[in-house]
Structure formats: structure tokens, C-alpha cells
């Protein structure tokens, strides 16, 4: 430190006593002291001109000081060439003068850099960092050097110098932040966005760090979105700021305190430059038409991309509820995001309602086609491919010139394939090959292969899948091509072809994205070929992972052990499975629990070890495991003589159930209470004590808060309330719909609601509810009976055309159960007679008489109808 403090030391000088010379010298020194470097340099220059050759001046000690002060004055006054020349001479002439060498070397390097003498600058910096590695100013040298390398696009070298800066622990906290930001900028220039994000993540203190993050976050998030790094985009989007906030931060930028020590001046100038750079970056961002709307769009997209659908839905809701101008400009984006978020969460009804709301409120909005497309996607998502295709056809014919037309046609063809219309889908995919860009060809080929496969064109399918594996496509699509081929070989159990294909796949995709899926196919092949040991080995290996494929492998293992009646293996597998789910804090595997039940009933021994039993029992009591609660209770009941000891109870099972229910009742744990109480009710039901069973359920009705109940419990209670026509029945059924709108039990609940409405004389309402069941739950088991009921209601309400249309549609469906077919024939025949289609009425009645004679009630009605038709 003292080296620098003394660098400009001018306390005494050897020119004292030489008057003319001293006057001139004093004037120069005085100017330097008064911080008038230009004047000082002129005086030094004159001094040199008049007295430079005097022996006193040429004397060693005086010359050293003269050269040093003159050189520094020249640098300070901007006479860089002169300053550099003088100071370099000083360095050369005073090799043993250690006192100011570091300071002078630093100043020369700086001056060379300022006067674009890059090579000389780097030479001086190199000597500086080698000779004075202990000085903190090495960090400054490396920083300047990094900036120089960055300006020359030598990014690796720039990064290496900045790493040296970051390793300097003596930098103040704000200096560290600036260095990290500078490093992030180098990363960005280098295209290494992940590293930039990492460095910015470390900047987490103060306004400076906040500004740098806010300035760089939008472009970072954008890059990550483009590069398919949604997690990075999400992290960067967390740093977004509003323009107002940025302006406030600009005003709050820290100012640097005054300093006079030369060493502090060096640092201060550096920080000043860095802050100036930040300032100008921030101003550029603000001047560049920086829009909050755009940031919100990015935020919504990153939430969706990073699999944060629930959060995307919540933010969309806030935007839709906001009355601000900003929210108005984001309306269609918010709707689209909300719909996509609901789709991702498989909340199809919610997605449909959002789209309907939008379509009703903004029928002329420019975003209408996008929302209509999303609506079709919702139908496809819930596997209602007929509706999806129908919606797509309407969309395509309404907006034939839309920019997304090709994308829509591809989607529509895909859904057509899913709906079983493989041939027309194939025609469309082949036609699209000539209409779309080259990069989409592999995908079209892949879809065509699927179409061929679905329409039994196996050889064409093989050839097309093989094409996909060889085309210039994304690795994921290429792997899908391999999987398509493997599935064909698996279906035909063509061992050599399967073996060769799997080998080829593993060679070209050693660590493929779908590696586990291919392993599963391999296991299936061995299983079908009868090599169960080999299949089990592969399933076991896959099951050690996580996710749906691992879950599938676990299920397969369970199935194989059960089929082989290998109960020790079944036991080991089931217990391991349950334990791993507990460890992961996931839901209990219903299949694993069922295996336990199977083991106990077959082997006749208790399966659960004491510790696991207690964990499960505690989980049930704390409502953690309510979803598998009934199977767990079944297990306990089956071997109660063993489990009661471990649970430290002397009660019989039924009393224990009652005690547990009473405990949960007292503490208000409704969820757990409902599991115990309903299990008890089901026990009574099995004993034939139906009234007692219902008494238990009814007791629950008055006790529990319906909102706190799990899906199955609420369903049972709502059904009980409906059965006894309690006043709260409608409320409970509606609560179920509100709370579990995507539950597979929903259509059953809706049917009950519709029937209640009909009973209450609300015919329109009853039909509307039933129409919802028929249109939204075509994949449900309740679909056919609901549709038949609706056709009957249409007829009763005089809506004959609707009744006839629906009956006709039902009769065209494949796989109708006999009773429902007979009922539908009868409804259509009745409508036919009323509408004068006597011939078809007679035919339908004859058909019932011939084919469905076992349904006496329908036979009687058809006989009456036949009589009426014959009389007519």
C-alpha cells in the first residue's frame, strides 16, 4: 500500500538551492499538487528544455524523480505517448528501484490500453501479474485484459482472465457482483447461456446485482426457450423487472465516495467504468421499447414449458381477473395459457369451459383460430378423437388461409388415425409431404408408417419406420422409428428380426431417450417367448428407475409373480414397492397392496412386517394414505390375529374400526374417519346388513365436512344421500362435481343429478345434464346407459327428431350391450311410429322379438307397439 501512497511523494526535492531551476521545478510540482496535470506536464517539459542537460538534473536520484513525475503528469493530462515513453524509460533506467515499479507498470499498461497499443499493454500486464501476484490490483489487470480479449473476440482467453478476477477474495462484495456480471456477459458472447445463468445466480446482493439480472434476464430466458432449456428459462424469468422498477433502480444506483489516495483512485475509476457500463446497458434496455407485456408472455410460456402447469393456470387467472390495461393486452394469451395449463393437468372440462367462455365473449378476436385449435386439442386429450377431428375440419374450412394451416392438417390427420380412420389419415399424410417444409418430412413419414401399420400394411409400415431411423430427424423421432419397427417384430414374434433391430437401436442410440421403453419391449418379447426369468430380470432393472415406465415394469413384475404363483417373490416385490413409494412420499401402489391381499389369502400368512404395518397405520391415521386405505384395512382384517398384536390392541377388528372412527371423529380428521367408517359400512354390507351399512354411511353424512373427503368417500356418501333422497343429496353431488370434476366417477354423479332434476320436474335441466354426460364422457362406462336414457327423455319430452338421431347413432355404435340395444330399438321404433316410419318400426319390433326375448319388459312393450303399428 505504502508503495502507492508514496508514488507521487513530493515532500522535498534535490533542486532546492538552484534558484532558476528551482522556480521552474516548484511551478511544475505545485501544478501537480493542485491537480492541474496539463499545466504540470508543460512545466516539466519546459524544465527539461531549459535544464535537462544540466549535470544536477542528469544526476541519478533527481533524474529518477523528474522522469517519474513528468511521466505521470503526462499520462494524467492525456499525453499518453509521452507518458508511456518517459515511464518505460524510468523502468529501464531504474531496475533496482522497487518502490514505485508496480504502480508505474500498472499505469503504463493502462495507458497502452487507452491508446490502442494492445500488444504493449498485454506485455506490461503479463509482467505485472508475474512480478506482483500478491497485489489485489492483479484482479484489475486481469479484468482489463479480459475486456481487451472480449473486444478481440478471444472469448476463452477473456473467460480465463475473468476467472482470475473472481478468484480474488479481497474484492468488495459489490465488486464481486460486477465481476460475476462481467463474466456472465462473456458467457453470453460465447453462447454459453447456462454458465451465464450460473454466474448471475451467484449475484444475489444489492441493487447492482438486481439491475444486471433484470437487464440480462429477458434475453437469457429467450435463449433458453429457443434452446429447449425450460428450467433455465424459468430461472431467468424469475429476475424479470418492470420498466418502472428498472427506472427506480437506475436512480438508486450507488454513487462512489470521494477518494484522493492514488491507489483508491485506480479502483474508483474501475468501478466507475463498470457502473457506467451497467448504466448504459440499462438505458439501452429501457430505450429499446422494453415491454412488460412481452415479459409476461415469456413468463407464461416458461411456466408451461417447465411443467409448472398449475402455476401457469394461476397466473393466467390473475391476468384474466385483472382490470389493468396490461392484462387487457394479454387477454388472449392468458386464455390460451389457461387452456393449455388445464390440458396439461388433464382437467378437460376446465379447458373446455375456458374455451367456451372465450368463444362466447370474444367471437371476433384475432386469436380465435388458436383457441379453436386448443379446443380441438382438448377433445383429443380426452381421447374423443371424433370430436377433435370434427372441430379441426370446421377450423380448417373456416380459416383456410391461416399461417398454421399445415400444422392443423398434421394434427387433424394424427387424430383421424387415432379415431380409427387410418386410410384417410394416410392419404392426408402423403399429401402433406409435398406441402410442408423438408424438416417435417421424417415426422410425416413416421405418421404414415403408423397409418400403414393400423391398416395392416405391415411391409409398408416396416419400410416407413426404417426410413425414419435413417432420415435426418430429431433423435427422439428416430428412436420412435426404431420402436415402431420393434413393435411390429414383437407382434409377429419374429425373433431374428427383433434381435437384430434391438441391437441396431442400441448401437445407434447407446444412451437413448427411450432406452427404458425399448428394454420394456425386450422384456415383453422374452415374456411372450416363455423366457420368464430373462423377462423378470429386465423388468427388475427398469423398475429401479422412476416415472410411468418404471411403474409399468413394477406392475408387470407383479403380474408375472402372480401368474407363476411364485408367492415368496410376489411378497418381496410387493413390500419393496410399497416401501419405495413411502420413501418417495408418493401414493401407495394399489396393485402392490392387492398383491399383499393375494399373498395373505393364498399363503395364509400375514405379509406386512411390524415396522411397515405401523408406518402404514400411522399414514392412514394422518390421512397420508387415504387413497389405498380400504385395501390396507382389508389386509389388516384378513390377519387380524397377528396384526392386532403388533398394533398393540386387544380389540376385535370391528371394535378396533369403531374405536378408530371415534378417535378421528373426536379430532375432526374427516378424511381418515371416512375411510374407517365406510370400510365398516362395507363390511356390514357384505354381511347382508344393508340397513346397518347405510346407517353408518348416513351417520357420516351429518358428521363430516364434504370438502375434506377424498374422491371415493365423497362419492359413496353422495350416492347414499341420493339413495335416501336426503335434502343435502344435490349439494353433495354438486360438491363432488366441483371438487373432482375429472374423476371417472363424475358421469355417474352427473347421471344421478340429472335424474334428481327430472324427478323435481326440471326437465330441461335434466336433459342438459345428461347431454353433458353424453358429449363429455363418451369414454365412460356410464355413456351408453346415459345416452339411452337421454333418447328416452327426448321422446317423452316430444323432441322426436333428437330422440331418433341419438337412437340411430347408438345403434350404429359397435359393442352395445344387448339390453341397451333392445331398449334403443324400442325407443327408435316408438319415434318411427309417431313420425310415420311404420316399416322401420315393424322391423325393429320384430328384431326385438327375435333377438332379445329374454328381456320380458321390453318384449311386452314391443308387442304392444307392434300391435299399434299393425292396426295403423
Amino acid at each position, binding site marked *: 500500500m505504502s508503495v502507492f501512497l508514496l508514488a507521487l511523494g513530493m515532500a522535498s526535492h534535490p533542486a532546492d538551492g538552484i534558484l532558476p531551476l528551482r522556480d521552474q521545478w516548484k511551478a511544475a510540482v505545485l501544478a501537480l499538487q493542485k491537480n492541474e496535470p496539463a499545466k504540470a506536464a508543460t512545466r516539466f517539459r519546459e524544465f527539461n528544455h531549459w535544464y535537462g542537460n544540466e549535470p544536477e538534473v542528469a544526476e541519478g536520484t533527481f533524474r529518477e524523480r523528474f522522469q517519474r513525475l513528468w511521466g505521470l503528469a503526462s499520462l494524467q493530462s492525456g499525453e499518453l505517448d509521452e507518458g508511456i515513453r518517459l515511464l518505460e524509460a524510468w523502468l529501464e533506467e531504474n531496475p533496482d528501484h522497487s518502490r514505485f515499479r508496480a504502480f508505474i507498470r500498472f499505469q503504463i499498461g493502462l495507458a497502452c490500453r487507452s491508446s490502442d497499443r494492445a500488444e504493449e499493454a498485454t506485455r506490461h500486464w503479463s509482467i505485472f501479474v508475474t512480478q506482483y501476484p500478491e497485489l489485489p490490483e492483479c484482479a484489475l489487470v486481469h479484468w482489463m485484459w479480459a475486456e481487451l480479449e472480449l473486444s478481440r473476440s478471444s472469448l476463452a482467453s477473456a473467460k480465463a482472465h475473468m476467472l482470475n478476477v473472481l478468484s480474488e477474495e479481497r474484492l468488495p462484495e459489490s465488486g464481486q457482483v460486477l465481476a460475476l456480471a462481467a463474466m456472465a456477459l462473456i458467457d453470453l458472447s460465447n453462447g454459453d447461456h447456462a454458465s451465464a445463468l450460473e454466474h448471475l445466480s451467484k449475484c444475489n446482493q444489492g441493487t447492482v446485482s438486481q439491475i444486471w439480472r*433484470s437487464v440480462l434476464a429477458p434475453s437469457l430466458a429467450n435463449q433458453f426457450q429457443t434452446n429447449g432449456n425450460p428450467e433455465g428459462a424459468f430461472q431467468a424469468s*424469475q429476475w*424479470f*423487472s*418492470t420498466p418502472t*422498477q428498472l427506472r427506480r433502480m437506475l436512480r438508486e444506483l450507488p454513487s462512489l465516495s470521494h477518494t484522493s489516495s492514488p491507489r483508491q483512485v485506480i479502483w474508483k475509476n474501475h468501478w466507475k467504468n463498470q457502473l457506467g457500463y451497467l448504466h448504459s446497458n440499462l438505458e439501452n434496455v429501457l430505450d429499446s421499447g422494453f415491454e*412488460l407485456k412481452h*415479459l*409476461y408472455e415469456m*413468463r407464461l410460456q416458461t*411456466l408451461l414449458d417447465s411443467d409448472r*402447469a*398449475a*402455476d401457469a393456470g*394461476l*397466473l393466467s*387467472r*390473475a*391476468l384474466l*381477473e*385483472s*382490470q*389493468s390495461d*396490461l*392484462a387487457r393486452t394479454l387477454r388472449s394469451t392468458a386464455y390460451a395459457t389457461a387452456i393449455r395449463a388445464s390440458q396439461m*393437468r*388433464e382437467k378437460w372440462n376446465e379447458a373446455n369451459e375456458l374455451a367456451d367462455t372465450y368463444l362466447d365473449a370474444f367471437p371476433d378476436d384475432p386469436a380465435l383460430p388458436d383457441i379453436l385449435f386448443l379446443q380441438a386439442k382438448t377433445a383429443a386429450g380426452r381421447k374423443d378423437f371424433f370430436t377433435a377431428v370434427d372441430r379441426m375440419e370446421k377450423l380448417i374450412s373456416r380459416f383456410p388461409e391461416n399461417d398454421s394451416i399445415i400444422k392443423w392438417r398434421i394434427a387433424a390427420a394424427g387424430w383421424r388415425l387415432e379415431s380409427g380412420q387410418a386410410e384417410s389419415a394416410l392419404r392426408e399424410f402423403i399429401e402433406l409431404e409435398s406441402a410442408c417444409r423438408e424438416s417435417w418430412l421424417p415426422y410425416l413419414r413416421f405418421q404414415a408408417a403408423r397409418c400403414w401399420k393400423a391398416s395392416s400394411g405391415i411391409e409398408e409400415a416396416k419400410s416407413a419406420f426404417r426410413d425414419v431411423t435413417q432420415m435426418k430427424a430429431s433423435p427422439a423421432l428416430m428412436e420412435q422409428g426404431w420402436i415402431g419397427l420393434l413393435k411390429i417384430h414383437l407382434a409377429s414374434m419374429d425373433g431374428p428380426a427383433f434381435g437384430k433391430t434391438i441391437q441396431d437401436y442400441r448401437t445407434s442410440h447407446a444412451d437413448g431417450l427411450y432406452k427404458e421403453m425399448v428394454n420394456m419391449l425386450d422384456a415383453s418379447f422374452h415374456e411372450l417367448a416363455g423366457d420368464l426369468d430373462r423377462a423378470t430380470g429386465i423388468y427388475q432393472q427398469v423398475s429401479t428407475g422412476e416415472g410411468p415406465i418404471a411403474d409399468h415394469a413394477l406392475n408387470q413384475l407383479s403380474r408375472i409373480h402372480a401368474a407363476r404363483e411364485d408367492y415368496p417373490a410376489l411378497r418381496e416385490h410387493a413390500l419393496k414397492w410399497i416401501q419405495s413409494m413411502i420413501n418417495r412420499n408418493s*401414493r401407495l401402489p394399489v396393485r402392490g397392496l392387492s398383491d399383499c391381499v393375494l399373498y395373505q389369502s393364498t399363503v395364509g400368512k400375514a405379509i406386512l412386517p411390524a415396522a411397515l404395518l405401523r408406518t402404514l397405520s400411522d399414514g392412514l391415521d394422518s390421512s397420508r394414505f387415504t*387413497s389405498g386405505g380400504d385395501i390396507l384395512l382389508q389386509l389388516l382384517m384378513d390377519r387380524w390375529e397377528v396384526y392386532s398384536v403388533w398394533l398393540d390392541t386387544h380389540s376385535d377388528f370391528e371394535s378396533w374400526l369403531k374405536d378408530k372412527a371415534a378417535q378421528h371423529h373426536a379430532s375432526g380428521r374427516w378424511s381418515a374417519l371416512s375411510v374407517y367408517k365406510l370400510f365398516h359400512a362395507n363390511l356390514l354390507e357384505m354381511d347382508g346388513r344393508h340397513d346397518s351399512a347405510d346407517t353408518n354411511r348416513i351417520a357420516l353424512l351429518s358428521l363430516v*365436512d364434504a*370438502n*375434506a373427503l*377424498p*374422491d*371415493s368417500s365423497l362419492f359413496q356418501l353422495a350416492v347414499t344421500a341420493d339413495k335416501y333422497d336426503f335434502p343435502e343429496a344435490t349439494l353433495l353431488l354438486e360438491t363432488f362435481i366441483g371438487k*373432482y370434476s*375429472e*374423476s*371417472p*366417477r363424475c358421469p355417474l354423479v352427473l347421471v344421478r343429478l340429472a335424474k334428481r332434476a327430472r324427478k323435481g320436474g326440471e326437465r330441461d335441466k335434466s336433459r342438459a345434464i345428461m347431454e353433458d354426460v353424453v358429449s363429455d364422457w363418451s369414454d365412460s362406462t356410464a355413456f351408453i346407459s346415459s345416452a339411452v336414457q337421454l333418447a328416452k327423455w327426448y321422446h317423452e319430452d316430444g323432441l322426436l327428431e333428437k330422440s331418433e338421431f341419438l337412437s340411430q347413432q347408438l345403434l350404429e355404435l359397435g359393442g352395445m350391450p344387448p339390453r341397451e340395444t333392445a331398449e334403443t330399438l324400442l325407443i327408435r321404433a316408438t319415434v318411427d311410429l309417431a313420425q310415420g316410419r311404420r316399416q322401420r318400426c315393424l322391423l325393429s319390433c320384430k328384431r326385438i322379438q327375435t333377438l332379445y326375448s329374454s328381456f320380458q319388459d321390453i318384449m311386452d312393450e314391443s308387442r304392444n307397439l307392434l300391435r299399434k303399428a299393425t292396426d295403423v
Partner: protein
Amino acid sequence: MCERWGLFCIIMLTQIAGHLDAIQIKGIRQNGMTFSGQLIRAQDNFIEFRSNTGNQSQIIGIPFSQVQSLQVTDVPGESSWLVNLEPFFPLLPLFDLHAQGMLIDQLEGLANDEQWSRLYQWTGYLQGIEGEGAASDRITTLRAWALLEMGLRQLAGELLASLESSLDPLEASGLYCWLRARIAIEENLPEEARYWAALPSLRIPAYKGNLSARLEELRSDPSDPKPS
């Protein structure tokens, strides 16, 4: 000097004794003249304060009717000064926006000290003053907080709901969102709770205030619940 202050001033000369640990005010009279000093009391429609000049101080009284606006320039560090300010309640309407903002900041101190009944009382005083919208929303939110902590959930919920029409969800404070989330949890509305708990961190800029951790706790299970 006496003439300039006219009939409205009471002047006494006293010696300054030590450091003033009290509320410092600055104000403008109806005639445009400014005044400043240490607030002493408000009585009989007069405001009394100690004005210091050099080593001496004067106690000055000005009728409320002559005060155009008042600023609070300094307050003791702890929220207990609010207790001392209670006698000056009639002056509150004279406080300018900045002073009202300062007061509201101090009310948050009361909340941090868990002085819920006092917070309720003070928000009541401040609600009586016609203030700027944002300040009024802050006061109502603090009042709802006090109510909630005093066990009056329904009243707190109603008070917060009353802000819905004026408070944009993109602008709602972290405190407002946190309170809404808490009430929703108590009312067994998990989706609603999740919405309010998540909202502050989803907006731009993401909320990073002192309630961040508590909001995060209320977001509960991050995985989407799906029907079994």
C-alpha cells in the same frame, strides 16, 4: 417576531435539555409560512411544538385551522411512539401523504410486535382520513390482519373481499395475498389458497419480501392433485 406569529402563537423561552427523542414535525401554515419542531401536544384545537433555535427553544402553539399541512420528519425508532401520538389524533387529517405513509410503515411495526388490538385501533383512526387509494388499501389490509390474528376470520375475510374491486391482482401486496391464502386455508378452499399464495411469486417482478417464506409454505403440495 410576535407580530408575525400574531394572536395565534404562544411563545415561551426555555433551555434545551439534552437530546430530543420525540416526533419531529414540519408544517405549512395557511398563509404559506413554514414551521418545524418537536411535537408536544394537541389541545383545544391548538397544536403545540418546541421550536429550537441555537441553544434556545420556544414552545409555539398554532390553531389547527391555521395549519395547511403537516409532515413528520423524524420519529423514534420503535413503534411505541405511536402510543405517544394518540393525543394528536385530531391532527391526522392534516398529515401529508408522506407522513401518512410513514405512519402506515410504523403500523407494520405494530404487527411485527403482535400488538393486534392497537393495530386495529390505529387502522381505525387512519381509515377516517381521506387518503390516497394505495394508502387506504394498505390500511384496510393491516386492519384485516389485526382482525385475523384476533380470531375474527370472517370479518377479516369480508374486509379483504371489500378491496377486491379496487385492488388489481397484479398489484395486490404480498401481505394481502398472504392473508387471503391463510383465510382460504381456514375455509378449506385449497385451490383458492394456492392461488393467493403463489400469485406474488408469479407476477413481474416476483415478490421477494419478508413474507416470501411464509407464502411458500402455504403453497402446499406443488404436484397437481389428480382424482384417484
